């Protein structure tokens, strides 16, 4: 717009010339916009720095030897470089093993969750059926009920699992499912996993905005329901589904609640990380039986490394998928 305005005053005149002709308005506007952009740059830089700084500190303290931690002249750059800390944290968290476990479980669970949530969201967005409002209220309930409310009974439910007493009648025993991934896989398949209500809500929002005519045309041409869903609706919904998958993957990766309750049989990285302090004291004692007190600074250093290791894969993933994350949400979040 500003470029068009200059046409009237003369393109080739100098700034001050134009400013004089506009009776000071141009200068005022220029100053205003410059100030705005400087203020904005400062504010954003400060906030960005605040987000990034803890990561940087973690990264640099990770390479410090213990004496460096207590040396107040050292702030960011370590004097005695060492990779030992990483080795210790790897040992403490059972590193490659727990990370691989986390990887395949997160992948499996998020794929299951996203598939079932897509189906459910499509049903809610595109079909009219009796009690629809009631079921949708249940989805909202799913979003707002804290999982702690139901954890105890779920825990016991899976400890003595039975479908309508069939197993008890057949074998006289109930099955303890707590040692396998089956309960959580079942929950994921039926949209009861971590924050699944939210994914249903997001996907439903997306499907609602797709014009009806697409489906109608497909119906007139004799396309079956399933085919309409997989070949017409799904391809367009891919970005949204991908972002749901990413959320699901990331949240599952760092989740502690469900991991501790349902997946305790697998050594998952997040669980290992949460109990790192108690294992540390045993690790550093000479005979592995007595606990020694690990100095606080050292403890925090090792925790910092653990956290760093936990989110480095996520950040790498995020760098590649950032566009999907943001753009697809731009399509779903709007309205309502």
């Amino acid at each position, binding site marked *: 717009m500003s470029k068009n305005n200059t046409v009237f005053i003369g393109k080739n005149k100098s700034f001050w010339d134009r400013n004089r002709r506009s009776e000071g308005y141009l200068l005022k506007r220029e100053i205003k916009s410059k100030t705005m952009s400087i203020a904005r740059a400062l504010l954003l830089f400060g906030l960005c720095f605040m987000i990034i700084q803890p990561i940087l500190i973690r990264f640099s303290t990770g390479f410090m030897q213990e004496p460096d931690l207590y040396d107040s002249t050292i702030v960011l750059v370590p004097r005695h470089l060492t990779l030992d800390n990483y080795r210790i944290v790897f040992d403490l968290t059972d590193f490659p093993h727990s990370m691989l476990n986390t990887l395949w479980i997160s992948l499996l669970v998020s794929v299951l969750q996203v598939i079932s949530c897509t189906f459910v969201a499509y049903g809610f967005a595109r*079909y009219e059926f*009796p009690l629809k409002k009631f079921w949708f209220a249940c989805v909202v309930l799913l979003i707002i009920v804290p999982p702690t409310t139901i954890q*105890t009974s779920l825990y016991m439910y899976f400890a003595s699992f039975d479908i309508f007493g069939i197993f008890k009648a057949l074998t006289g025993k109930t099955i303890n499912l707590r040692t396998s991934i089956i309960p959580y896989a079942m929950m994921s398949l*039926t949209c009861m996993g971590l924050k699944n209500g939210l994914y249903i809500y997001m996907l439903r929002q997306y499907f609602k905005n797709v014009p009806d005519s697409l489906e109608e045309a497909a119906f007139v041409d004799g396309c079956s329901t399933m085919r309409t869903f997989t070949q017409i609706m799904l391809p367009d919904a891919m970005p949204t589904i991908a972002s749901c998958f990413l959320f699901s993957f990331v949240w599952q990766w760092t989740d502690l609640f469900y991991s501790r309750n349902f997946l305790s049989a697998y050594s998952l990285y997040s669980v290992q990380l949460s109990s790192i302090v108690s294992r540390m004291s045993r690790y550093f004692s000479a005979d592995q039986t007595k606990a020694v007190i690990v100095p*606080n600074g050292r403890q925090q250093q090792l925790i910092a490394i653990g956290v760093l290791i936990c989110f480095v894969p996520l950040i790498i993933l995020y760098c590649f998928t950032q566009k999907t994350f943001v753009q697809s949400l731009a399509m779903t979040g709007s309205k309502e």
Partner: protein
Amino acid sequence: MANQNAPREHWYDGIVEAVQTYIPGNATFRTMRARNARIGTLFILPFIIGFLVFMCKPMVESFNFSFNDVKMVPGQGYELTPVGLGNYKTALLVDPEYNTLIVEESGEMIINTIATLVLSFVIAVLLNQEFKGRVLCRAIFFLPVILSSGVLPGIEHQNEFYDMMAGMAEAVEGSSGINISQALQDLLQVSGVANSFFEVVFTMIDSIYDIVMASGIQIIVFLSGLQSISPSLYEAANVEGCSGWEAFWKITFPMVSPLLLVNCIYTIIDFFMKNDNKVMELIYQVTYQDFKLGVSAAMSWLYFAIALAFIGVSSFIITKAVKSYE
């Protein structure tokens, strides 16, 4: 078919409709509408099953727990002895921490929610403008979505190490170093302006890191709302001589305000369900260390009721405000 849009006359009409839709042997069953309804139900069937099995049953059970004294019997599950409201009384009157923690968390929640909404809105407006490095900035601001989930904040919270480092840095600089926020605080307090208000503001400033970390999703939601506003509105306003400030309050804010409700509810839920939430920790401890299942059930139900109350009140206020604004 003809009266499909007719208003329902009885409360049980929905159930009658359901019966006619799902059970063959009547005229309605064979209609297109009923067929579609069955397909739709098939789509949401996973959710229905999951909800009934993994949500409804445990919820009813845990509600039942909260009125009983629960004893674990090895090998057989549990034994219930009814105690009426005893568990609730224990939670509210006997437990030394629960009361105070709830009040504390609720207060913190109110402040945090307001701060999160304001901050995420401001950031979203900033990120929606054109400037160099916008893509990078956006990427950084959405990092908290990853960093503040699950196990990370709980562990990060033990930030004593960094406090220690900061303390040492101060010690090196000597006591003469002026802490700006402290100085400002002193200044304002000396001048006698409403103390408690400034205290709230200063706690907000002190906890800005937590607030930024908790506002990743909210920023995305606001940003998506901002991007859905058609640019022609601003053009028209500009032609009519509307200043940027006016355009903000007359166009941007009303267009985004419906999202305020979504974000507010999301923030409240997020805050109540965080892992490093003290009440959650207490409930976890009562469940798994003290094995007082009844009391912990009562505690979580009370907690849930409070969360619901907050969501209800805030959505009421926001809906009213947005309506009056329009």
